[in-house]
């Protein structure tokens, strides 16, 4: 039997309930024992503009997304136009029959550039600029279009509030019915999604019934999907997973200034200032709460987090490109004065405000070169939910151990990926504390009596010492002595050597796939799981590929990377930026020059189909640079 593999897109106006439609679908499938993987795409807008969720549903845990989708659910007419190119022969398009009379010129929320592209395509096929035109376009390509009489179905079945309140439920219900998920699980999904409101559950279940009834009586009915025992899992986004990891890792003070796609992490933490404790935590220890401060700006956010670290608190901030730019000076200060602080850096499309709600990986070189002067900092990156959790914990550990700023890179795609995480291992990462000071008399905060560069940490309230961003002596007072300058520079930078020595290779770089392969991909961040999927796809086609996946850029595992790449044949660098920044880092540290690139900078997530296609083009030497363009 063919494994269930459903690729799905739900689109609608921002703020118009696609999140709840997506939530119902996700919950129904999760409770039926499936796994889901989804990415949310939206405009920098609160209400009205087009947004969508791109999903994949499988029994195995999916790791990547694909176009064309099998089913597209349009909760507004815009979706039909915006995603004209995301469906293909065999796809099903579900929409409200009320859209039939909609004219493209009334789609005011479609930006003029997108409108131009849609019109060009329709004009070329001699089709009208309206829903009829786009439906004809679909039909001529072999796509099933399914019109559902939304208002009629709702009005005949529920009488609690206006019909449009139930559009999302009907959209979700129809989708579930069309996919063949049994109705009982659809009901479970509704119950889960509206947990606390029995009355709402009741009327929404009536809508589900109406949807199933409609599909059953129509020629659209399909065979029922198998269901599986559902194990408990957590439905997390990258933002959630990182928040959870940081809290587990001992975070007790977080600062932020609102910015997409970072603030979801902080606002989630803000709603969990009263954390819950594990059973075995002893009584004295489990008295605690987290402090989250919304600051006046990012200058305040980084420097306040630095300040909190001075009392021995594990502190962090989270931001995105524009905020990170403002934080540069504060990060330099933390490097100079040896403050343990974590900056979770959610990358979005730059430069400037760029594509505020879209993906990007163009801040790697910026992170590596943050701040003026030379100071130690660590730069790490995560690529999936588990890494967000455990790297969230480790980022705080690294900061404590090496007394330096730790920049944790996460991209927007990962931040907004939804994934079901089956297990969180609370014993996977041990909590590392700073090197405690035992001599409270004449305390030398920056003692040079250290081989690894790590001096005893001072804590305000327990120790008297001084700190300054000027060059300083062992006590922390300003000095411009030339010899002391050299010693302090060397002591600080020595900590990076120590970090490189102490941190295991698997936390820095990992080779996935066979050691000897025809193709070696190089990537970092959210393309990780996508490329692991790509390798298995290629294997099915008889092509051997592996993946050199980078997790740490400072300190950089140069020796290992060089060793892997020297044994490789066709090396392809895959990144969500225009200049191949990781390839530049590799060249800088190893001298190895990667010549083939699959890059994407339109702000949308990479998909399996486009990476496979580009790989073929590179293999056939049609090109050395493939720029991916999929996504609406």
């Amino acid at each position, binding site marked *: 039997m063919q494994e269930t593999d459903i690729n799905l897109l739900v689109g609608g106006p921002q703020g118009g309930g696609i999140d709840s439609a997506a939530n119902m679908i996700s919950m129904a499938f999760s409770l039926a024992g499936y796994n889901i993987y989804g990415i949310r795409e939206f405009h920098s807008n609160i209400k009205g503009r087009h947004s969508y969720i791109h999903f994949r549903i499988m029994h195995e845990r999916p790791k990547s997304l694909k176009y064309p989708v099998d089913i597209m659910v349009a909760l507004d007419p815009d979706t039909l136009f915006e995603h004209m190119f995301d469906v293909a022969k065999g796809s099903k398009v579900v929409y409200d029959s009320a859209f039939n009379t909609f004219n493209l010129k009334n789609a005011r929320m479609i930006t003029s550039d997108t409108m131009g592209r849609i019109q060009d395509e329709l004009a070329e096929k001699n089709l009208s600029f309206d829903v009829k035109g786009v439906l004809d376009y679909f039909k001529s390509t072999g796509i099933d279009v399914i019109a559902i009489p939304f208002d009629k179905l709702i009005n005949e079945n529920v009488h609690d509030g206006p019909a449009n309140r139930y559009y999302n439920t009907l959209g979700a219900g129809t989708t579930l019915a069309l996919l063949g998920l049994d109705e009982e699980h659809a009901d479970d999904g509704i119950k889960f999604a509206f947990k606390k409101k029995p009355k709402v559950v009741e009327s929404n279940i009536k809508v589900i019934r109406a949807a199933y009834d409609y599909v059953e009586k129509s020629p659209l009915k399909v065979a029922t999907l198998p269901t599986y025992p559902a194990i408990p899992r*957590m439905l997390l986004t990258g933002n959630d997973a990182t928040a959870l990891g940081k809290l587990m890792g001992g975070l007790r003070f977080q600062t932020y200034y609102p910015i997409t796609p970072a603030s979801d992490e902080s606002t*989630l933490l803000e709603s969990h200032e009263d954390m*819950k404790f*594990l059973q075995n935590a002893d009584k004295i220890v489990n008295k605690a709460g987290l402090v989250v401060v919304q600051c006046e700006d990012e*200058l305040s956010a980084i420097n*306040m987090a630095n*300040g*909190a670290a001075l009392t021995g608190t594990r502190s962090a901030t989270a931001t995105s490109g524009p905020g990170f730019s403002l934080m540069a000076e504060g990060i330099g200060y933390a490097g100079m004065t040896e403050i343990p602080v974590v900056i979770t850096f959610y990358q979005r499309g730059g430069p400037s405000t760029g594509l505020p709600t879209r993906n990007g990986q163009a801040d790697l070189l910026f992170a590596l070169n943050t701040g003026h002067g030379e100071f130690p900092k660590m730069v790490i990156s995560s690529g999936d939910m588990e890494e967000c959790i455990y790297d969230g914990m480790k980022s705080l550990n690294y900061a404590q151990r090496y007394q330096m700023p730790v920049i944790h890179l996460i991209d927007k795609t990962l931040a907004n990926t939804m994934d079901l995480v089956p297990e969180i291992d609370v*014993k996977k990462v041990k909590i590392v504390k700073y090197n405690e000071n035992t001599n409270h008399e004449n305390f030398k905060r920056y003692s040079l009596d250290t081989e690894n560069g790590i001096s005893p940490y001072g804590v305000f309230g327990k120790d008297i010492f001084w700190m300054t*961003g000027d060059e300083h002596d062992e006590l922390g007072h300003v000095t411009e002595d030339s010899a002391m300058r050299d010693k302090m520079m060397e002591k600080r930078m020595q900590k990076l050597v120590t970090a490189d020595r102490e941190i295991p290779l698997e936390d820095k770089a990992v080779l996935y796939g066979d050691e000897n392969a025809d193709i070696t991909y190089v990537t970092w961040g959210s393309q990780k799981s996508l490329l692991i999927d790509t390798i298995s796809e290629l294997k099915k086609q008889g092509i051997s590929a592996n993946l050199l996946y980078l997790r740490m850029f400072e300190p950089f595992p140069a020796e290992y990377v060089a060793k892997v790449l020297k044994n490789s044949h066709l090396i392809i660098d895959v990144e969500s930026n225009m200049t191949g920044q990781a390839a530049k880092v590799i060249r800088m540290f190893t001298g190895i020059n990667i010549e083939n690139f699959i890059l994407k900078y339109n702000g949308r997530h990479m998909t399996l189909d486009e990476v496979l296609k580009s790989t073929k083009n590179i293999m056939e030497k049609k090109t050395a640079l493939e720029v991916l363009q999929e996504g609406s």
Partner: protein
Amino acid sequence: MQKGVEDKGKYNFRNNITIDWCPGCGDFGIVSAVTQALSNMKMDPDDVVAVSGIGCSGKTPHYLNIAGVHTLHGRAIPYAVGVKLSNPNLNVLVMGGDGDLLSIGAGHFVGEGRRNSGVKVILYNNSVYGLTKGQAAPTLPLGEKVKSLARPNIMGKINPITLAMASGYSFVARAFSSEIKQLSYIIERAIKHEGSAVIEVLQPCPTYNDVNTLDWYRQRVYKLEDDKSWDPVVNKKEEDEEKFDTGYRKSLEWGDHIPIGIFYENNTIPSYTNRLAGIVPEYLKYPPALQEVADKDGYTIVDPIKTFSEKDVE
């Protein structure tokens, strides 16, 4: 008491670091007033922290025998707030120049008024940027030409008192660096006040400010408390409107007569730390700085599933 100081009152809050301010600089008086206030209060040196920005003023913490952090230009307040909110048991003093606090750090100055987290801001007002050789500070009046300026000041000035009051600070005062006794008293009062305080200190800069000199100030300053009816303290919400109004108006007086003293003290505004105590469990008893984050085997104590139970699909 960890410093081995049996008699708290005898602790020397001044350390032996050489002070490198110009002779005659008003900053010396501020250091004396701070150490006097701390000695007078018999402050445990572990319980007080000095946080400064950048400028001549920013060097102050190095001269005090307490933990001190000399931060970035304009950023003393965020550091101070980070210290205070992670360990509300500490008394946190902020020392910053007028350029530092009212120009590059103005956003934090205003932001802290809204927070009112309990830090005590000592604002060194010399009307110039001392350390960068005498450019106009935001406190220099329009049209005034101090000696290092190429032409008279082309910008208007900020009144630190009105700005502090409008921002929400619950303790606002002005002092003069040569009136050490009064300044030291005001610092003590500010430390005892629960919310955040701003103490503007008029401070001669003999090197770059040849207008607002020591004598210039001496001839003009007078103490608010010399008027026995002066009572700036709000203990009941109903008194606020009138006392705020009186203090605000008084602070506008400038020129031949310059009032110094406490303009406004409002004890009815809860501090940020107290507001947090209403949200974060056991915050005052176990603030972030005093928490254990690992069990005895070194593992996390946080239950991720119970904490984020809304994400649990079961």
